């Protein structure tokens, strides 16, 4: 009873006093770093895109593969993870009555670890000693400092995960028998997924360190790739789940509606957590050394992940339609007019969501062995992940920033910044349509990925790709304008916008909702099921790769 009163008091206090200052500092720091990285990563992307289109000659001290590696590391590892934790911890603090002092220590230590890691990773790339791309596939061998930096970065992520677990466990102890509030439930799922996904890549990196130091002569390439993708694919889905959290929890509030079924939401999260890590295998669908029946089984495993995504799509549009009709929307399509299209917080989330339809469809095509054989080593794949990460995830993050940054900064979103945000969102969308569309198309014509600009001795086929390269460059230029506007908006909302209260927009559960079953809270059980699925999926290829291993490979520096 006492704890219940304390909790109510705390919740009320949080509501009255707004955001907890110390917790806001955490989120603000994480988000600030995230958007600075976006700015730098954006310029690197532009340089790379223009160079790839044959429009820009890079200076002699900087080569294409260096820029490519840095762009990947900045955007995929740093921008996304810093943003994710800034966002999740703001939500945990808001929903669970402020972070525990112990948890804050965890998050700050994590921050230090991640920054040290990032610096250690970037130095060898700048020295041109680690142009191995963000996937760092052996036998490409980077400087040992690169791998050591990755370890620090991973430790930072683990500390953030553990901090979130402590926070949620503490809340559950004080609120026996209650369901963890929905945003924190998403945060739990995301952290569980990240915690376990980091294990395989940590094993890989801990093997690569002695190899890069020369203590071990050779490395098992296939095992390394498999361990990498167990993490790599899950990382993609961690961003996706972060974006999904905003679709389910935030978007309904922004349009003045309520959330869709609480049970369905939680089941989607559990399903994504259980089935995700094994999805990594479809990134290796044309790798050698894996028998066809095993590849077939993995097509099913991967398509299974599509199922909760379809549930999400259905739930989202159901919420939109229900809310719009309540507000007087009519007709089969006419109700769309009632949506707040002028509100950047909604517009960005909506486009992010809508883009997942073609992005997901492309993903399903790539999961299929025969179709993937056509596109796997082409620009199509680059187009695919610019559509998923660049639109679905990035626009969701941008949309979130328009209320999250003012919320943690004790400021408000002004109409001017809202307008700027709407313009930014459209520029970004059009830029990505150009760039990703051109990449998809030119990929179908055979233009390879992971190669710098070349005309292959003015071969006719290669010359035929050039118009698409131009379209890519146009898209890239629009995107850098988008990046600059976005970073300007974030800095403005963080430091210069008028002071005031901004709400953390969490939508209520639907009216007359049926109670959510308690088994959704049994994370221990779901984690064991997830481990079992992972064990079953990976035991086949890994045993084959290790028992029937070819001679290991020495390291190569091809750049």
């Amino acid at each position, binding site marked *: 009873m006492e704890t219940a009163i304390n909790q109510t008091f705390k919740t009320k206090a949080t509501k009255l006093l707004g955001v907890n200052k110390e917790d806001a500092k955490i989120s603000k720091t994480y988000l600030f770093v995230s958007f600075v990285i976006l700015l730098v990563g954006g310029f690197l992307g532009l340089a790379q895109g223009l160079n790839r289109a044959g429009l820009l000659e890079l200076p002699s001290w900087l080569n294409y593969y260096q820029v490519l590696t840095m762009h990947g590391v900045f955007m995929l590892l740093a921008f996304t993870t810093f943003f994710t934790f800034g966002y999740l911890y703001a939500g945990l603090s808001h929903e669970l009555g402020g972070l525990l002092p112990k948890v804050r220590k965890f998050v700050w230590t994590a921050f230090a670890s991640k920054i040290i890691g990032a610096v250690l990773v970037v130095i060898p790339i700048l020295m041109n000693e680690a142009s191995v791309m963000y996937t760092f596939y052996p036998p490409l061998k980077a400087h040992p400092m690169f791998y050591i930096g990755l370890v620090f970065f991973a430790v930072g992520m683990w500390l953030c995960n553990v901090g979130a677990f402590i926070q949620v466990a503490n809340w*559950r102890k004080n609120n026996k028998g209650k369901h963890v509030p929905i945003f924190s439930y998403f945060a739990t799922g995301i952290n569980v997924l990240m915690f376990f996904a980091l294990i395989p890549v940590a094993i890989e990196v801990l093997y690569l360190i002695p190899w890069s130091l020369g203590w071990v002569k050779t490395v098992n390439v296939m095992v390394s790739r498999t361990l990498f993708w167990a993490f790599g694919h899950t990382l993609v889905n961690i961003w996706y789940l972060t974006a999904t959290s905003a679709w389910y929890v935030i978007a309904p509030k922004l349009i003045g509606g309520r959330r869709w079924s609480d049970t369905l939401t939680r089941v989607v999260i559990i399903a994504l957590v259980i089935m995700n890590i094994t999805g990594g295998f479809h990134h290796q669908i044309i790798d050698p050394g894996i028998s066809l029946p095993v590849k077939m089984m993995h097509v099913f495993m991967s398509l299974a992940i599509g199922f909760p995504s379809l549930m999400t799509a259905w739930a989202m549009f159901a919420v939109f339609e229900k809310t719009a009709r309540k507000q007087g929307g009519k007709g089969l399509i006419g109700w769309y007019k009632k949506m707040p299209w002028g509100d950047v917080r909604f517009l960005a989330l909506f486009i992010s969501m809508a883009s997942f339809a073609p992005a997901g469809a492309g993903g399903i095509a790539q999961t299929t062995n025969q179709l993937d054989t056509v596109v796997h080593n082409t620009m199509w794949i680059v187009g695919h992940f610019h559509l998923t990460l660049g639109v679905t995830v990035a626009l969701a993050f941008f949309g979130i920033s328009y209320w999250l940054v003012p919320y943690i900064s004790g400021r408000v979103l002004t109409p001017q910044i809202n307008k700027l945000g709407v313009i930014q969102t459209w520029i970004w969308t059009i830029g990505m349509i150009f760039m990703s569309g051109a990449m998809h198309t030119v990929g179908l014509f055979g233009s390879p990925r992971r190669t710098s600009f070349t005309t292959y001795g003015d071969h006719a086929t290669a010359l035929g790709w050039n118009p698409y390269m131009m379209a890519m460059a146009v898209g890239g230029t629009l995107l850098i304008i988008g990046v600059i506007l976005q970073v300007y908006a974030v800095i403005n909302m963080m430091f210069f916008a008028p002071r005031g209260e901004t709400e953390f927009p969490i939508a209520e559960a639907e009216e007359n909702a049926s109670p959510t079953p308690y088994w959704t809270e049994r994370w*221990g059980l779901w984690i*064991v099921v997830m481990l079992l699925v992972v064990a*079953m999926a990976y035991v*086949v290829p890994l045993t*084959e790769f290790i028992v029937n291993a070819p001679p290991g490979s020495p390291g190569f520096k091809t750049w």
Partner: protein
Amino acid sequence: MQQFIYGLLLLIALAIPPIAHFMESVMIIHMHMQMPMVVFAGFLMARLFMDRFPRFFDKWNGNGVPGILLFVIIVGFWTLPRSMDDALTEQSVEVFKFVSLSLLAGFPLRDSWKRLNSLGKNILFIFFTILFLVVGWLYIDAPVQLCNNYLVIEQITLGWGFLTTAICIVIYLIYITFTDRTKYE
């Protein structure tokens, strides 16, 4: 009734020759995917019979022990290399596999699980952990082919499948031993 139909459909799907042939072409998929799915199909179908004939189950499986013993015997039998070979060679044994794993393993598991007390459940978990560790070690360490139908590499893979499953059960046992649910629920 709905669950019965789902279970039956799953059973039929698994028994369709191309699907059965495909799943049986890889040793670990045969034992760790096809067989558990047949048990699961029986598990789903059991509900109808439990509702229709409650007295039969009460009479013969009052405390859940007879049912779970039957389950253990059937599942134990199907972890043997020889039984898998037989299923692939003899049509009648293949039919017996589908019938036994659904009716004699899936059914009693469903009925017994809620009748067993926590001690019984934990004994079952520990039994299967030990069984999986031993069988896993057998499959990994055997220097010769144990099944005529599968290569040694597949045997080793299956062995590791058993070991990792055993590890997962151990993790679950540690989890339920060291976390106090009453603190949270």
